[in-house]
């Protein structure tokens, strides 16, 4: 019996959301009186995997097969299932990411496990029932879900768990092979295209987000958003109409039908705060709204607000951040 954590790596590094997942998994292991092992997917270095000890992981299994560098559903599912069998994992924890959801759902059938996605808190394990809190209704509510199967798979929402950092602790890295065959790579990508990320910060992983709406008037004004984002080390985002008219690319659109984000800081500039937009951002820890209309609905969801013109306010904010640093 143990806890298995799936960590996603990219360019040799463990993703931030996976550090959170590792911390989550090791706390679940402690709760159950067992240890947490990780299985790494993607491109990783041994040194970075060993550092998962800081998140409470004791051992990391890693298959260095080069074709596993990019996401392949068939192969990842088989690899993680094999790791789960090897470790007799009772609980499997992964990120509520596109990879986590794709693999977690297949694994739940293969391993006869109960699955909860969008998990926002550590589980409660009392009186023989295993319950976990998850987001529901597009961020408008929460549900406590009872997982009845002997095995449980939990997909943890980004930024809902603080990553542990026990400096100096290391995990042992073990090479691991799931004896993957060519057939397991039948759905391997023909091509992987990475998008340009403004300021190099990936929106789904971002701690801080500066977002613009129709109030920005046009793409030529986006440098105001980008300047503030750069000063803050934030990712940039936008509302749906902005991406619909191609002022910004689709992958920046947040909301009900776009990306869901839950950063520590979300700054909304010239966005009205329609309910469909809120659905994608309302679990952000702190929301700042800049809008010239004091009646804009977004102010009801905000922690801080400035009633004013984005063209005047944004340069002042960027200036103030620069002075602070």
């Amino acid at each position, binding site marked *: 019996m143990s806890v298995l954590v799936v960590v996603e790596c990219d360019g040799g590094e463990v*993703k931030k959301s996976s550090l959170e997942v590792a911390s989550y998994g090791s706390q679940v292991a402690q709760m159950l009186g067992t240890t947490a092992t990780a299985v790494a997917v993607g491109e990783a270095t041994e040194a970075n995997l060993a550092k998962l000890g800081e998140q409470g992981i004791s051992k990391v299994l890693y298959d260095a097969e080069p074709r596993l560098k990019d*996401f392949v*559903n*068939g192969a990842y599912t088989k690899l993680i299932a094999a790791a789960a069998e090897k470790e007799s994992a009772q609980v499997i924890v992964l990120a*509520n990411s*596109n990879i986590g*959801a*794709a693999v*977690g*759902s297949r*694994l*739940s*059938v*293969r391993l006869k496990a109960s*699955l909860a*996605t*969008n998990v926002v808190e550590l589980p409660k394990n009392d009186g023989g029932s295993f*319950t976990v809190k998850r*987001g*529901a*209704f597009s*961020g*408008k*509510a*929460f*549900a406590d*879900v*009872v*997982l*009845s199967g002997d095995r449980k798979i939990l997909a943890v929402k980004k930024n809902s768990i603080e990553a542990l950092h026990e400096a100096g602790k290391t995990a042992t890295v073990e090479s691991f092979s799931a004896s993957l065959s060519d057939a397991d790579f*039948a*759905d391997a990508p*023909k*091509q992987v*295209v*990475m*998008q340009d990320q403004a300021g190099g910060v*990936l929106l*789904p992983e971002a701690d801080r987000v500066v977002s613009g709406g129709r109030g920005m008037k046009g793409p030529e004004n986006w440098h105001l958003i980008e300047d503030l984002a750069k000063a803050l080390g934030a990712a940039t985002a936008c509302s749906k109409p902005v991406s619909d008219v191609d002022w910004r690319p*689709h*992958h920046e659109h947040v909301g*009900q*039908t776009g990306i869901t984000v839950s950063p*520590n*800081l979300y700054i909304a500039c010239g966005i009205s705060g329609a*309910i*469909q937009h809120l*659905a994608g951002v*309302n679990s952000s820890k702190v929301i*700042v709204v800049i809008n010239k209309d004091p009646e804009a609905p977004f102010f*009801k969801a905000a*922690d*801080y607000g*400035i009633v004013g013109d984005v063209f005047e*306010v944004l340069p*002042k904010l960027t*200036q*103030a951040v620069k*002075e*602070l640093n």
Partner: protein
Amino acid sequence: MKFLVCISNVPDTTTKITFTPDNKEFNKAGVQFVINPWDEYALTRAIELKEAQGSGTVTVLNVGEADTEPNIRKALAIGADDAIRVNAAPKDAYFVAEQIAAIAKEGAYDVILMGKESIDYNGFQVHGMVGEMLGIPTVAPAMKLDMSANTATLEREIEGGKEIVEVNTPFVASCQQPMCEPRIPNMRGIMTARTKPLKVVEPVGEGARTSVAEYALPPKKQGVKLIPAESAGELIKLLRNEAKVI
């Protein structure tokens, strides 16, 4: 080519969410239900592909009780050929996936499409479960889908980019934008939808693996703290010293 499009019946996106007094169930009273917005991408794309091929069928499938039929009829009005309703309240993603897999197998569908997730339960699970139950590939979430004979080329969203994936039929894909522009029914569609076949079948399978013990609403916000526009820079100090987020 036979397309199977799975649709769920969800509260309209602007619904104010409330629960029964014991917090055990969503309060449906006075709520308008719609086709899950993500599923509209799946439905429209299936119809477009069928039209482009000049042959084939689009079947819509919903797991739900009789009150979902207006939205099934709407899907028929948009252009699906026929519909199946599995007569059961959807208990959890696993239960729904079992129903879809059973119907997909029996009907030998080539392409099974659905939305990325439902906007009520936000599971993002059914696609993978169905793929695994049927032993066929899943591509989730897909932003683009083209077909050439029995091969599909899809763009799959990954964090920070996309993968171009090729799979052969049969396969499952969960759809999201910008796959297509979802269609709305026209008058002719609405008229013909009434006469299109809607089959009702009973559920199969082992049942659910999860249940909801209780729902809760998020804690109320404290209320917004306003900073005058002239002294906008003050906000940055508050974010550092008070909110401690920068």
